[in-house]
């Protein structure tokens, strides 16, 4: 595309009147910047993908091997021979799965109470919840660690999972905003039909809020899957490591020095699910970013 735009410019340079000429030139510049920027954005992914399938000589070859052939798929099993890769994957899937369930269930319940039900103290409590959002995570990290350590949860997966079942102010806020856009008449109609509050929540609010719930689930997935800090703080037993922690452990271990193709293979395993989820739910993702301002 860029190439064509540029060629147009050069062939028409002298034939067209000035404004037209300037527009074409501008178009060419725009395409040039956009394409080279996209190349910079995409290249590291390409490099990771190809390096993950190279043999050791191909990794350090110059000129670089752009597309390795044959594909060295055995790199993945080689990684599994050095670190308990399957176990890392299992831990990551377990933690992420439970955290998504915990977050969506507890936050949607809370959001329902704050958006649709009237109870004494509701608005005050909501305000307190929200104002605590300005306290950075760094403040609660140390005392939470001490408490979890004292109740014997250090070096278990519990500190990674259990808090998610008790909601988070931010997601409650997000879902509450969405729930409030659902007309109240729907609740009232259901009440006249004899539905109780749990029933209204399950049969009306939740089905109508699928996009918002999906957005919360996707961001929870990304945040938890990529989380490095929490596992780093709480886990010391290799058998409990999640993928990102395992990757950094693998990267730092001395006998894997210069085994770049293995590192890239493992890194690819961490990155791929995020990219797949992004492609599957791009619209929700963009919407979520615009609403929440959360950067990836």
């Amino acid at each position: 595309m860029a190439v064509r735009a540029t060629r147009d410019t050069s062939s028409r340079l002298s034939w067209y009147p000035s404004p037209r000429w300037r527009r074409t030139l501008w178009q060419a510049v725009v395409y040039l910047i956009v394409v080279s920027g996209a190349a910079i954005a995409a290249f590291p992914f390409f490099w990771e993908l190809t390096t993950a399938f190279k043999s050791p000589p191909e990794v350090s070859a110059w000129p670089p091997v752009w597309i390795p052939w044959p594909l060295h798929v055995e790199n993945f099993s080689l990684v599994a021979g050095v670190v308990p890769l399957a176990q890392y994957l299992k831990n990551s899937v377990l933690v992420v799965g439970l955290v998504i369930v915990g977050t969506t269930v507890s936050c949607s319940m809370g959001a329902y109470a704050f958006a649709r039900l009237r109870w004494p103290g509701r608005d005050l409590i909501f305000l307190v919840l929200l104002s605590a959002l300005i306290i950075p995570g760094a403040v609660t990290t140390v005392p939470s660690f001490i408490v979890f350590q004292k109740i014997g949860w250090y070096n278990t997966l519990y500190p990674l999972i259990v808090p998610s079942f008790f909601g988070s102010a931010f997601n409650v806020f997000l879902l509450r905003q969405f729930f409030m856009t659902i007309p109240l008449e729907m609740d009232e109609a259901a009440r006249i039909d004899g539905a109780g509050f749990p029933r209204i929540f399950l049969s009306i609010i939740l089905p109508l809020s699928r996009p918002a719930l999906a957005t919360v689930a996707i961001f929870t997935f990304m945040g938890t899957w990529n989380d490095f800090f929490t596992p780093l703080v709480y886990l010391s037993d290799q058998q409990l490591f999640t993928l990102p922690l395992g990757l950094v452990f693998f990267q730092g271990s001395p006998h894997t020095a210069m085994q770049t193709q293995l590192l890239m293979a493992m890194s690819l395993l961490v990155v791929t699910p995020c990219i797949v989820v992004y492609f599957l739910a791009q619209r929700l993702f963009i919407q979520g970013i615009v609403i929440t301002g959360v950067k990836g």
Partner: protein
Amino acid sequence: MAIPPGSTAPPLSSRSPATTAARAGLSLRQREAVAGYLFATPVILGFILFTLGPILLSIFFSLTSYDIISTPRWVGWQNYVTLLGDGLFWQSIAVTTKAAVVGLPLGLALSLGLAMLLNQKIRAVSLWRTIYFLPSVVSGAAVAVLWLWILNPVFGIVNSLLRQVGLQPPDWLNNDATALWTLVVVSLWGVGGSIVIYLAGLQGIPTELYDAAKVDGATAWRRFIHVTLPMLSPVIFFNMVLGLIWQFQWFTEPYVMTQGGRDNTTLTFMLYLYRNAFSYFQMGYASAMAWIFFAIVLALTLVLFRSGTMWVYYEGERRR
């Protein structure tokens, strides 16, 4: 977000209203309140257990000397006083400030510029947007490891290419002069998130404003200064506050890629806090650091908010 058209409430069981109302002898209003408390219980409990409790504990610990094994010893303001004389603490503040002062404006210019380009009429625009956004969905350890390979001093593609054109590139991440800036540039790779926010902001600017400016003979540059920037200022403001908070929590890349640097040249604030808490087990000291972090971010955010009244334009705002 709107409710999809044509959607109706799913069918409900036909329980008679009379029996439900009579149940438990509560009025409708009372039952609503009970339901409200029950539904909010997990969130309220979670707030007390995982936010309020830790906050109070953190205040307490910050006034003690505590190594997690022996009992906490009350030291009053000692931790805060020690911090003020701690060279590494000031080093971590300096590192974070340097990264923020350079990284935030660069990130702002880059993402706003790219958002404006992607807002033009260009072909396959959704493809370009997808590509630009891709890096920001894969943050963290995997990205850090990937960039370690790209920037590898001997076999990395960057240095190989630079040597090919006859330069003598440094070992970017192991060099006191370049390590921090390299980390800043690597973090710019993930600006996709703010591009999306700016794009949404740009698309919210009414085209009439541009048309009116054109009629008045405004050049593209003047249209940018007098229409785009003022209309976008709330979004810019929002991104700056977020970026500031993010900058102070910057941890994974410095930890994985430089471990703080040879002479602590990349010792970010969060990295030093982590070291104090989880390498030296100075829990009280680390708690005090966290509160200083909170005070700094709060002060800067307030300054931003205060200055915001001068340069942020909110539509529909009533002038005083």
